[in-house]
């Protein structure tokens, strides 16, 4: 679960502003807040990635039908 971290630069004024925003929230640091915001923004653009193949999906649907979840 451990991830390697790298450094990016942001303006000091923005940093200070974020420090203010995250006070009294669950965010431990400006970095964790920035990470969260970036993840959110990127997630919007990402293609819906399916973890399984067409056959796999057909098998899932078949099971859902056999259990009465789908017609």
């Amino acid at each position, binding site marked *: 679960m451990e991830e390697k971290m790298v450094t990016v630069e942001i303006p000091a004024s923005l940093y200070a502003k974020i420090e203010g925003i995250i006070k009294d*929230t*669950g965010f431990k640091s400006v970095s964790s807040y920035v990470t969260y915001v970036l*993840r959110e923004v990127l997630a919007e653009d990402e293609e819906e990635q399916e973890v399984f193949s067409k056959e796999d999906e057909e098998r899932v649907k078949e099971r859902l039908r056999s259990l009465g979840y*789908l017609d």
Partner: protein
Amino acid sequence: MIKPHGGRLVNRISHEERLREEAREMPRRDLTLDEARDLANIGHGVFSPLEGYMCREDFEVVLEEGRLANDLPWTIPIVIDADRDEIARVLEGDTLALFYEGRPLGILDVEEIFSYEKKRYAEKVFKTTSEEHPGVARIYAKKDHLLGGRITLLEDPPTNFPRYKLWPKETRVLFRERGWRTVVGFQTRNAPHIGHEYVQKTALTFVDGLFINPLIGKKKRGDFKDEVIIKTYEVLFEHYYPKDSATMAVLETEMRYAGPREAIFHAIIRKNFGCTHFIVGRDHAGVGNFYGPFEAQEIFDYYPDLGIVPMFFKSFFHCAKCGGVVNDKICPHGPEHHINFSGTKIREMLLRGERPPETMMRPEVAEAILSFDHPFVE
């Protein structure tokens, strides 16, 4: 479709016969049914992004911050314990076979073996060190070491509810096929009374689908038995729920009774199943008087990055003046006009073999409960 927690649905499943044979040659640890169920939950991504049991760093950050080491919200340690004898047989870097009833269900790549303080574990997760707390008592009964590392799931443990056993991969297809863009999840360990039904239907009014997800697993004395919960929801669905917008599947994991922290955990699990919303009522996952009635709602303030929307409800009750079932936000009348849906009172009546009034419980549900000789965990 909402993304799983951490962005990707974990899949740690292998059906390779070779691994099964190798597992039989490895040092092994036998699992209880609840442990076997959680192994399968990891393998099928119910606990995404976890790919195994927590190593020390994740474990520590979860205790201290209620987050994983990479900052993602996570509140309940997912760990496997081992005693001195068991750790004498494995080293970090070894593999350990995880057996249930004589069958190898999984393999653990032992990344780290570490000790932990049970008192601190209890204090952080349960906010108490009292042995009276059933979740704490289970921590104290654990062995002294923890094993961290990725798992491979070889086989699912048996289930008593194959008809209702769905994994996140399946519920995600189901919600999509049904055309539900928004789905509210409901956690339950109760047979439903009228109050539950109104909470669920009020939530459903604002989303496309309702996902009832009863928790099947170790509970405490006095809780409804699993088969009673399922049976009562079956009759409720049959008589009172819209077929196009409500469905049910089971979640097999033990109750921790960790109140606020477990509410976050329950929400994350439902996010992985594909829910966009999650209902949090009064004293969610609480026990006795260990948590304030709305602590499990307040904790959500701490997690703006949770990625699933909590829907908070205080209480529904019958109001004589309003002339129906209402809630605290819409009824201006005093408590003298209210009949509360008291789970305790309903339980007492049922224990005496009495049928609760229709204002409290649907007659079909009461009937279903009373058809069991012993509806409660003894």
